[in-house]
């Protein structure tokens, strides 16, 4: 089992979500986050006072995936979340030791 965390542009989220559903991903957790990497923020001006907004809104998708579909999910996100500009985000993968379904104590990949 792998945990996939993808931080993407909010504008690409709908396409990513639809593409993932098409390849059979059954669940995901989505969080609206703010952050920045190499992408610089923007400035806002209120009555001549400039404010630099360096934390930008992003969407973070979290999924725990069976090993066999990890690669296709990564490929799908790369394909659909890309705009080619700085600020497109990142994907992080990490190992998951176990998963437990609270309803019936199922364990491992079958609990996903």
């Amino acid at each position, binding site marked *: 089992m792998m945990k996939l965390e993808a931080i993407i542009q909010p504008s690409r989220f709908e396409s990513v979500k639809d593409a993932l559903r098409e390849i059979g991903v059954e669940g995901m957790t989505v969080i609206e986050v703010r952050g920045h990497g190499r992408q610089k923020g923007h400035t*806002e*001006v*209120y*009555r*001549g*006072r400039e*404010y630099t907004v360096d934390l930008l809104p992003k969407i973070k998708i979290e999924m725990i995936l069976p090993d066999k579909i990890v690669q296709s999910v990564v490929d799908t996100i790369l394909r659909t979340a890309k705009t080619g500009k700085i600020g497109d985000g990142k994907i992080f993968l990490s190992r998951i030791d176990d998963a437990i379904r609270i309803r019936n104590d199922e364990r491992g990949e079958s609990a996903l």
Partner: protein
Amino acid sequence: MDCNGPALRRAILVSVVFLAALFAAKGLKAQTPAGSFLASAVSQADIAKLDQRISAAQSSGDNAWMLVSAALVLMMTGPGLALFYGGLVRQKNTLAIMMQSFALMGLITVLWALVGYSLCFGSGTLVGGFEHAFLRGVGVEPNGDYAPTIPQLTFMIYQLMFAIITPALITGATAERMKFSGTVLFITLWFLVVYAPLAHMVWGKGGFLSATLGGKFPTLDFAGGTVVHISSGVSALVCALYMGKRHGYPKVPMPPHSLVLSFIGACLLWVGWFGFNAGSALASSGLASSAFVATHFAAAAAACGWSAAEWIKNGKPSALGAISGAVAGLVAITPAAGFVAPMPALIIGAVAGVVCYLMVTRVKAIFGYDDALDAFGVHGVGGTIGALLTGVFASRAINVVYHDVKGNATAVGWLDGNFGQVGYQFVGVIVAWVFALVGTLVLLKITDMLVGVRVSEEHEIEGLDVTQHGEEAYNLET
């Protein structure tokens, strides 16, 4: 048949009325040549009766407009100004700033009923007397000095609404750091010591700046450029300087928490201003129409002016800029509304939009004072521009202010041929500035000694909503 019934009946009715009128007219014709003493006596009485009816009809029309105007001006404070200012502060101070506006709707009203009206509109040179204290003698009979066609009660309640919004404007400069107790005490004193005398000098019977009621320096101020906007704007500057900057200003970002609220507030102000300016004709007259048009034109031109300046300077025209510009234009046209034609109104608005933009963006930054919501930059500066330009553009074609010995209308403003008016406007502006400056400084000192004007640093950081009022504007989790 069914649908013909009513039409038929109407046709019959119309013809009956027509015939009756014809007979009546014939009867009159037959009578006129007779022309006996008796007949002329009857017609004299008839004319008097008719006169009475006409003036009753005019009074009824004027009163309707003035009551609506009074309500419109109240709407400028709550919700107009409360929303406009409320959106501009940070979330933690939203209720506090709105409450300051609302509290004045209560506080000033009570003061007005007790002594305020009398101090403003009683007779005297510097301030009104106490002849109308506790609203003595203020009833449905008109007060001929001010508004001969409406009940004095209407005039009184209309003027009250101005007295409410004026000190409310000052709270824009003290926003996010002034104690509520300090605000209440300071405004009470300010209303009695600064507003009432100034209102009396400009508008009151015998006031020495009054243009029409026997003043030595006839200053034209149609709806309160000096009384309302210069007085509040200059006092706002003094408050901002006296209180010091907000904690963290200008390093910590303090962007407006909801420009949506400000947007709604500004639009309500714009609409309410028709009551403020057109209502200042004190009648439902052609002058009211003229002031209405000038008001609207100036607001529009100023919104365009500020936006254009911002577009050129920043590359983007902001919503906050557009609404701030409109307010600046409304401020500037206030003293001029009932004296200038539509085209000068456009010019006054455009000038105010650009100059006020430069004031709040450039000049404020150069001097570094923290006029939190730009009460001085918009009201003090816009009011001054408007008062001076009134002297330039005022025209006898719009409003006959001065007469020669034969009773003919004479020139009003500079372009009308009366250059001296600019000088009188200048005197009015200087008096208002000095009066507001000195008065506010003294009253702030007194307030500071008695209850304090500024909240503690912890309270300021925590926010005035919780520390001054024990509540929060947004409890989104609940």
